[in-house]
């Protein structure tokens, strides 16, 4: 065991009664994701520790940086609770930063073990003086330091500089399971990511209208699910063969309702899949007014085909912000590959903007999708996608 990570657990500590459950989920997820790296996880109040062999350091850091429920983490030095030992550790922690060109620093200390002779302020002051003596040209800046040396006096003393942010949020599964309607566009992967941070485990459904949509379009969706899995953990991708419902809509529905009815059919099937897998909600990438099918009236129409609540984390988000988020989570480059999903291919030239629930529902019933949707649901294929 060569590398020690100090892991900060964020919101978990705030959630009184659920804390145990949340912690168990995070620990299980962490264990699962670190499997094969022979890492050792030690839990505590607000601070966890993960130890691993130095050759696994990068991989373990990547997991800590991506799973929901972790506030931040740092490579830490564990040492004895004497000032001399602290000073040596602080020098070691600072050395790497100074080597990277850092010129100013501060020291922050937390003392859970009140038997330590110096108080937090005293530790910071004394260690600061030692570091100033150890490194020429280094100065103290308490407002905007290039780096911060943090000291925590607990069962042992821990010293670290350079904390990396985690994803924050709640551990996967602590809010149950959601079924994500994954289209291959920019929005839906971001939606899945955001809801995973709120503690949902995620399964995904894709509507495949081959040969209108290509094999490459499906592969793109699979790749997006793979990217999401980095954060969410394993994802089951449900691929619904949607060609026949699509053709029936083309033939029987008023042209301006084609997209709307297609989405109604998708919600119908998604709702059934969600129930069959024990999901408690649907998740979509819809954003109010972004396209014709996403007006309030049309959202009302399509969601009337789902019994479960439809969660739309991007409903009030500007596209540019969604794109920025997509870039951050690494899905953007895949999302913009030029393989169209069936939404694009079948969109009418002049779509209906404001559905009348009663009127459009009646028209929808007349397209006679029922048995075709049943068959599509029955022939849905499942693929389990695991994080790399």
């Amino acid at each position, binding site marked *: 065991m060569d590398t020690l990570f100090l892991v900060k657990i964020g919101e978990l500590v705030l959630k009184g009664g659920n804390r145990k459950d949340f912690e168990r989920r995070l620990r299980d997820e962490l264990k699962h994701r670190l499997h094969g790296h022979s890492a050792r996880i030690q839990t505590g109040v607000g601070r966890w520790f993960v130890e691993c062999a130095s050759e696994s350091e990068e991989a373990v850091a990547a997991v800590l940086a991506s799973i929901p429920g972790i506030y931040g983490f740092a490579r830490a030095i564990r040492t004895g609770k004497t000032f001399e030992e602290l000073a040596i550790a602080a020098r070691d922690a600072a050395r790497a930063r100074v080597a990277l060109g850092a010129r100013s620093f501060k020291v922050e200390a937390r003392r859970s073990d009140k038997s330590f002779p110096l108080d937090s302020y005293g530790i910071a002051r004394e260690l600061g003086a030692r570091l100033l003596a150890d490194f020429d040209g280094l100065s103290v800046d308490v407002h905007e330091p290039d780096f911060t040396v943090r000291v925590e006096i607990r069962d042992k003393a821990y010293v670290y500089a350079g904390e990396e942010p985690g994803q924050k949020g709640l551990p996967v599964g602590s809010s149950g399971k959601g079924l994500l309607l994954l289209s291959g566009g920019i929005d839906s992967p971001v939606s899945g990511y955001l809801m995973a941070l709120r503690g949902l485990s995620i399964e995904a459904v894709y509507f495949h209208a*081959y*040969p*209108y949509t*290509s*094999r490459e379009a499906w592969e793109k969706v699979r790749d997006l699910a793979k990217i999401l899995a980095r954060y969410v953990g394993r994802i089951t991708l449900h691929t619904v063969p949607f060609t026949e419902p699509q*053709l029936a809509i*083309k033939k029987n529905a008023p042209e301006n309702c084609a997209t709307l009815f297609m989405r109604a059919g998708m919600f119908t099937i998604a709702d059934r899949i969600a129930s069959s897998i024990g999901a408690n909600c649907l998740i979509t990438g819809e954003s109010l007014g972004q396209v014709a099918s996403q007006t309030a009236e049309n959202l009302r129409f399509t969601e009337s085909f789902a019994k479960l609540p439809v969660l739309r984390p991007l409903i009030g988000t500007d596209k540019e912000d969604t794109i920025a988020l997509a870039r951050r989570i690494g899905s953007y480059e895949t999302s913009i590959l*030029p393989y169209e999903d069936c939404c694009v*291919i079948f969109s009418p030239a002049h779509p209906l903007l404001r559905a009348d629930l009663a009127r459009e529902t009646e028209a929808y019933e007349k397209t006679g999708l029922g048995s075709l949707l049943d068959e599509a649901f029955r022939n849905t294929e499942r693929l389990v996608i695991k994080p790399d």
Partner: protein
Amino acid sequence: MTYLDWAATAPPDPEVLDEQRRTALSFPGNPSSRHEAGAAARAALEAARTRLARALRLSAKGVHFVSGGSEADAIPLLALLRKKNPGSIVVSSIEHAAVYEQARVLERLGWKLREVPPDPDGRVSPDKVAEAVAPDTALVACMAVNNETGATQPVREIAAAVRLTAKGRIPRFHVDAVQALGKIELGGDGFGADSLAFSAHKIGGPRGTGVLWLRSPVEPLQSGGGQEGGIRPGTENLPGDAAFALAAEKAVAGLQAAREGAEALEDALLEGLKAIPDATPLPLSRVPRDSRWSPWIVSFALPGLAGETAVRALSDSGFAVSTGSACSSASRERRVLDSMGVDRELSFSALRASFGPESTRAELDAFLEAVASIYRRFKA
């Protein structure tokens, strides 16, 4: 799989593959080496050059082996960059990407680019090309047979018109003849062009082999060991070149008979399309057995069914065709059809069937049946 995508690439001819293997094993030396093995390889390379020149009815001196059609197109265009001052170039807007995109690179490097769109039948008018030529025009390019529509271009007339109207220096005339070799008569004059591009793999030869024929040398941009008269440095691909020579000989020798076969298929396809409601040839004026089109390539549209969708559905039914050029089928742009003024609805639903010497009437009939049934099922 019924293969109707010969314009993308032809299945390898086993006899040609044998020739390639035999040459590789018999002549292991580097043609530039001074030892006996090198000399033998040099002699074999020159023999391949002579055979190719004879098949193409061109001078052996002008035959330069290159890596394929794209490089044969690039060399004369990039050679312009050796000139002190950029001038202008004139290219048809239906050129293969190897010419068209290379011309756009020159444009970014300061050359003026003038595009000549074709007439609605997909053919480029010699007068329009001549009109586009300016005193500073250094190069004119027009392909011999368009790879998407099969339209044969009046390249000989273009060469003459350019020569007639050019004031001052006559620009070089480059012809991409990749879809012409083995498909239409080349004549003995190289279409009156200054440079011609050929590719081996379109006629059953190996990929990675082509010929740039030059009436007079150019000063190439790329430099190196001086092979191929300095036009294309790099150790020669002797096995590929020898295989190309054999493939070209076979294609040219069999041209007359194969062409009759192709015309029968062209005729049958165009006739068969008439029986499919709404299906239409591209261009609409296309008729069989007309020298304005190569019988080997037929483009047609199934309005209301995206070309891409039709290609996938046909592929599942066992037929290989393409939406247009295989090289550009991933992009949404339909440059060739757009420039002909073809309606977007038609160009997005365009398909290209292309034949080879082994294509049969039975294959074509089955294909037409599949097209009709797929169109019925998936049409919007």
